[in-house]
């Protein structure tokens, strides 16, 4: 069915066009002057590699596996996150971790392998929700790029150490091998 388009009757002033054109040019001139006088740091555009945007609270970026103060991993390899992950990109292998045997008389689990394929991950934050130990967090890093697929398959050590910035923890770099796990303090009760 044909649609009848109603024509809008302009007033004679509008139909002169030139006043409105001049007004428009005045507006664009204002924008031009304002933008040219604004220093780069205050403009809307963020000049990316030099300037970076502060991500909002709750932004879901690169994961971090949390550590205790002594540097041991918080994760207990319960597989909750792996189950929750809709993208099926978490791979966990558990191992027994028996320092506590001596004093406590029981054993704990910890992940031997904890891998997240960052290329499959959809950064939904389900793992963070599912974790009973608050061991996995999604943080604000978003600059994930690499030259090959394998290097975006983050392992346990990567996940524990990549993100350390706003926490105040130092970023550990340039040690290719796994750092020796620090001696666990005996729990004194």
């Amino acid at each position, binding site marked *: 069915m044909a649609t009848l388009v109603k024509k809008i009757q302009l007033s004679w002033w509008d139909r002169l066009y030139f006043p409105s054109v001049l007004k428009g*040019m005045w507006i664009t001139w204002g*924008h031009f002057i304002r933008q040219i006088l604004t220093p780069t740091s205050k403009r809307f*555009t963020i*000049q990316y590699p030099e300037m970076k945007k502060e991500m909002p609270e709750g932004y879901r970026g690169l994961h971090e596996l949390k550590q205790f103060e002594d540097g041991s991993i918080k994760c207990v390899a319960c597989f909750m996150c792996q189950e929750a992950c809709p993208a099926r990109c978490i791979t966990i292998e558990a191992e027994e971790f028996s320092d506590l045997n001596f004093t406590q008389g029981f054993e704990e689990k910890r992940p031997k392998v904890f891998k997240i394929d960052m290329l499959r991950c959809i950064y939904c934050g389900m793992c963070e929700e599912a974790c009973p130990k608050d061991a996995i967090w999604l943080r604000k890093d978003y600059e994930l790029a690499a030259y090959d697929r394998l290097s975006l398959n983050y392992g346990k050590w990567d996940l524990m150490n990549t993100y350390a910035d706003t926490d105040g923890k130092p970023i550990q770099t340039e040690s290719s091998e796994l750092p020796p796990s620090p001696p666990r303090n005996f729990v004194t009760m």
Partner: protein
Amino acid sequence: MIFSILSLTPELSWMLIKVLVCIGFLMLLAPPLTWVERRGSAMIQDRIGPNRAALFGKIKILGLAHVLADGLKFFFKEDLIPKDANRSLFWIAPALAFIPALLGFAVIPVGRSFQVEGVTYHLSLIDPNNGMGLLYPLAIGGLAVYGVLVAAWSSNNKWSILGGMRASAQMVSYELGLGLSVLALFVAVGGYDPHEVILDQVEHGWFLWRQPIGFLVFFVCQFAETNRLPFDFAEGESEIVAGFHTEFGSMKFGLMGLTEYIHIIVASALIVTLYLGGWSIPFNGDGDRWPVLVTVASFLVKLLFMCWVFVWVRWTLPRFRYDQLMYLGWRIMFPLSLLNLVLNAWWITR
């Protein structure tokens, strides 16, 4: 001196200098104008614009290096010709668009004529009283249609042909208003030589104030002639891809792009000469005492300002609809210019 080695007469060498300087000026001004367009439009739209390309990877100079990079890129692009294109016309088309655009500048005086040892030197490529006067740039401007049309026709592309047809219809219809508005000006001056027009303006004030309607019509028609927004129907990228130069690539496209900017410069020069007093300096009487270089500077300032206005208008106004364009051309601009002519004719016979 090199001129005596080449055994050139002073007139010839003066001519040679003028040709080199004028064409060099046009060719050198057009690329920075693309920069002005890109950065200026960015500023108008609260963006930043291209600012990344750097000379030797270091010197950024506000993105001016993009101009160089673009030019260089055009040279090294593959030169494609569509399968069923008319090859010879396809090759000629960019030149056909480019050369008329360049030629229009020839009669524009860029500064006051001066005398050295009894010889008068004129600062326009073609000396005054040549019998062509301002008819020449108008006639050459009319040729610009062929560049667009040939480019469109030869590339065997439906978008192109649509763009070409639109552009030719538009240019032809706006030429009427253009001619008539200039006619009113000639009537007021009593001559059609650019020098006479400028001297008349030195004496009696700019035509911008004396014939505002004529200026308005001429100005709008120049936009149509240069195929710029709000009248860029030849391109209309949201409707017909890139219009008449859809199929052009590499340096052919570069030439087409350059043509647009040279058109702007020549149109600005025409507007300055006809309506803004050419090389004269406002509020400063007596045209014979101004130093030549100051008049040249005055002309350049006006020219650059007009070029900026072209850019400015482009980023302010949206494109017309085609029927609106034709309506504006035939039902408003044409009668307005006629009215202007009649009014001025009455004014001088009063």
